[in-house]
């Protein structure tokens, strides 16, 4: 029985190496490619068959693993993908499900090992964490924010004005201000700037 061909896409050499060693130490899997950019993953698929991709989401070179996963799923729907990340950005899980990514694994906090997730994924099981990693932002836990508040926060961390946030989300500027006020009250931060910077550092929202 031929081994399952795995492509690793992760910009961190240590993470890549770890995955490589797990795969090389397994009898079930063989390493097809180990890449540092999500941008090029689908190019390899043009001429080289791959069964499973371990796709990191946030990349060094600005490419995004979920964008690459979407393109791959459109052209190669049979290829299974496991999204991996250490960031608690909450919208990635729902986006991954929407794209059709089979499984999702948190590098640092997931109790399951990556090999276990790979085995279950290749057995046609979809493995997603039951809960998001909980992080603390000021005095608040990440689970205390509403979906909309996190959407507003994500855009604010790019330096956008309230008007730009309102336009992007299709809501009024006053509503944006209300969400910001609510988040400041929850976190205990003194200003919008402090909220944006701390959120970005912790990685609760990444745009």
């Amino acid at each position, binding site marked *: 029985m031929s081994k399952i061909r795995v492509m690793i896409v992760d*910009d*961190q*050499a*240590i*993470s890549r*190496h*770890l995955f490589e*060693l*797990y795969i090389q*130490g397994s009898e079930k899997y063989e390493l097809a*490619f180990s*890449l*540092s*950019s999500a*941008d*090029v993953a*689908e*190019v*390899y698929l*043009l*001429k*080289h068959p791959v069964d499973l991709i371990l796709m990191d989401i*946030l990349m*060094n*070179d*600005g*490419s995004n693993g979920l964008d690459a996963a979407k*393109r791959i799923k*459109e*052209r190669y729907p049979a290829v299974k993908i496991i999204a991996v990340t*250490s*960031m608690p950005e909450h919208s990635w899980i729902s986006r991954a499900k929407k794209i059709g990514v089979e499984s999702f694994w948190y*590098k*640092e906090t997931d109790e399951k090992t990556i090999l276990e997730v790979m085995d279950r994924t290749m057995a046609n099981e979809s493995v997603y964490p039951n809960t998001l990693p909980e992080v603390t932002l000021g005095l608040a836990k990440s689970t205390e924010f509403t979906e909309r508040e996190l959407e507003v926060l994500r855009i*604010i*961390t*790019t*330096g*956008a*004005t309230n008007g730009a946030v309102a336009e992007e989300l299709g809501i009024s500027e006053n509503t944006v201000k209300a969400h910001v006020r609510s988040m400041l009250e929850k976190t205990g931060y003194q200003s919008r*700037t402090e909220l*944006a*910077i701390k959120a*970005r*550092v912790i*990685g609760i929202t990444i745009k």
Partner: protein
Amino acid sequence: MTLSQLSFDSMRVLGVISFVLLSFCIFGLVRLAVSKLGRVFAVSYLLFILILLTSSFYFDAAVNSKNADGFLSAFSSLFGALPLWSFILLLSLTAAGAAAVTVVVGIRIKRSLTPASLLEGLDEMPDGICYSDESGASVLMNRKMQHIINAALGAEFTGTEQLKDISAEKLCPGCRTETKGDGTYLILPDETVWDMRTGSVRYGKERFDECIAYDVTEQYGKSLEMQKRNEHMRTVNEQIRAYSREMDAIIRDRELLDAKIRIHDDMGRALLSLRSYLGKQERDREALTTLWRVTVSVLRCETAPDVSADRMTALSDAAEAVGVRLHFDGEIPKGGVTEKIYAAAVRECLTNTVKHADGGNLYISSQSENGCFTVKIKNDGRPPSKPVVETGGLLTLRKSVVRAGGEMSTEWENGFELTIKLCL
């Protein structure tokens, strides 16, 4: 007793009364004429005046023993035959009627819009107003406009022609103008701000030039305040953007640290497993071996730089893996939307070269000129047999280019060529 039988003293008294009432009615008639109110009142006054004039004339003639001639003489001779009580009644009715008409006229004048009241109203307005005829001479102007022109030009207001001096900035010291949008703002030494708006109006067949000066001092002050706040917000947002760019690097370092912590934990598990190494099952030994291999190799490559982090290098490696060579000529953008679109274009053309053209080389030439970046990509494979229909990746690429304000075009007859121009 008839009037003619009265004593001279009594006639003098009645004559004086008639004369006083007559003066009163003449005054009322003049006021009515000035205010241009209804004819009814004018006729009333004229009737009263006729009666009082006649009685005055009669008494004057009777007292001075004059022989009266003319129209009034015939009329006044009728007075002599009037009984005293009927004359008194006539005089009272005339006085009452004159008083009533005067009161009504007074009320009407007070309530009506006369030129004087119009001007009074205009003078009370907080804004400046003036109208000039076609020759430029002023026909209507209020006190405020006079004050504005005087403060701005140091001269009396003569007509809308003077407004050209405001536009030409022939202003008194301490005054200045500012143009924002389609409005011209005049700022006086007392820091009041006036929005000068000109136009023209038609009244009948005549055309008049109109100028209205709106007091926008408060709005102007608030707009300056808003400008300062927006400037401050722009600076803060720029700082957040810069910080965000730095944060990407910091977060990647944090990921690296997290990975190292994991390896450290794995090492800890390996050490614990080592204690039970002797006499254990094959499975434990295999897991331990793997862990140690990971740890040792990570420690070895820990300080090695990640050379494949460069986007174009990664693309070149990917191209080679699928049998295509990339040839770069010209500037390769670094960072920002341009780099993102450039990489997407190369990737898309590379995919098409392999899938459709069966080419072995992809040529990417680029240049920057006059603030615009242009890239042309073509392959050495089979040209398309018909015009290219943009779907999937090419369509997504076009959307990205359009969103960035750029242009994208494709040619197919002499081989597929993609051109993108971005002016950011």
